[in-house]
């Protein structure tokens, strides 16, 4: 901690030579990055381009911005902000890159489950409540993550009967079921609000459903805003079948 440049009142002046050397390096690197882009490097190109950009950025930050010669705390501030940016990037991509993988496993599972439940469910509201209250589990599911899938189809079917929200809520699935109901009353299949899948399909639907139905029923008054959040699982329960095509749809359409 001994060497703090700002201790002295005289400004720390870099020799002119350094500035011109850095300038030269930046120009060369710019040329290099353009040159490399002309080669056909395939998917590696972006890494090389980014590497060059990072080196260039390092020169600008270190010399033009004097960070190399300033107190280390300023470096901490700057690189700290980069660390948080990396966190932002990393977690978003954890989600993005793993959405399909698990969804596809579940697609098969959910479909099968959907049939099972339809068979055993009478579609009546009170059944749901009693089952929940008496402690007997709703359809027993083998794995934890899938639990949320179970009530959804139930709610979906119940929605058809018109007693939507009651079911959802009673089944203890809260919002998921509630919005599931909204989706049910809304425009059934069109509610592809599951954003993962819904890249193309019927996006205005959930919102439209929400507001249109907003005349007074429990389901209806749900603002459509949460809809995009909570309608998702409901949609997910239905969506898997058409998930795969829906995902690629916009891209293909344009082809």
């Amino acid at each position, binding site marked *: 901690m001994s060497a703090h440049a*700002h201790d002295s*009142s*005289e*400004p720390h*002046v*870099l020799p*002119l030579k350094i*500035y*011109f050397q*850095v*300038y030269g390096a*930046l*120009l060369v690197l*710019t040329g290099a*990055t*353009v040159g490399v*882009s002309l080669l*056909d*490097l*395939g998917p590696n*190109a*972006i890494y090389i*381009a*980014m590497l*060059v*950009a990072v080196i*260039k*950025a390092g020169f*600008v*930050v270190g*010399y*033009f*911005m004097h960070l190399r010669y*300033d*107190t280390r*705390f*300023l470096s901490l*501030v*700057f690189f*700290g*902000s*980069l660390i*948080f*940016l990396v966190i*932002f*990037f990393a977690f*978003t*991509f954890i989600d*993005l*890159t793993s959405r399909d993988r698990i969804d596809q496993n579940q697609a098969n599972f959910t479909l099968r489950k959907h049939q099972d439940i339809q068979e055993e469910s009478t579609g009546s509201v009170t059944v749901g409540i009693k089952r929940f209250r008496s402690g007997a589990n709703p359809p027993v599911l083998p794995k934890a993550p899938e639990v949320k899938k179970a009530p959804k189809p139930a709610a979906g079917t119940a929605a058809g009967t018109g007693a939507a929200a009651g079911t959802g809520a009673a089944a203890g699935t809260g919002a998921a079921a509630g919005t599931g109901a909204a989706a049910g009353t809304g425009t059934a299949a069109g509610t592809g609000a599951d954003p993962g899948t819904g*890249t193309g399909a019927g996006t205005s639907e959930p919102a439209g459903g929400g507001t249109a139905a907003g005349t007074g029923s429990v389901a209806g008054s749900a603002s459509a805003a949460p809809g995009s959040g909570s309608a998702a699982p409901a949609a997910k329960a239905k969506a898997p079948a058409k998930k795969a095509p829906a995902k690629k749809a*916009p*891209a293909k359409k*344009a*082809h």
Partner: protein
Amino acid sequence: MSAAHGDHPKFLQHHFHSAEQQASASKLGMWLFLAQEVLFFGGIFVAYGVLRFLYPETFLAAHAYLDVKMGAINTVILITSSLTMALGVRAAQTNNQKQTVLMLALTILFACGFLVVKYFEYSHKIHVGLVTARSFSATGIAGSPHIFFSLYFAMTGLHGLHVLVGIIVLAWILMRARRGDFSSAYFTPVENAGLYWHLVDLIWIFLFPLLYLVK
């Protein structure tokens, strides 16, 4: 410890003890501001990453419609302006008022040059309909090219806005430099404006390959 003794230098605000404290506080404040700029632009870079991940073919096809030559020229212009800015700060540090003014003026000139090139690029894109999604009218590019061009306009637009702000800030600093406000004892405003300007350059260093070059 030259500055803060006995007489109270004009530039020293009353709540600071010394010129050093004031200078280091301003600099820290500026870097904190830059940190938030990093995250501000970082957000849109994340958006770029996500959409590129979702539409890789589109990005490949669409980026070819950007003019690499103009992008490269602008890169050189910005790097040069960064150099003149750094030299301007150095001139202020060494009490060379004339050179400070000259370098600041050059920096502003390059900044304007950057915007002029950008203007030609934009007007060409708009002319052929390569614009944001709702008014996108160009045809013949595979995928969903409107996304790429929307991002292009959002990213370079925000960056351009920063250049514009930079010009205003630098003009103000230039005015003060001509008035003789700065010396080796007090050049923080020049330095901070410089930091801001370098950050603008820094962002372009990443924008250029991501938008123009990436294959």
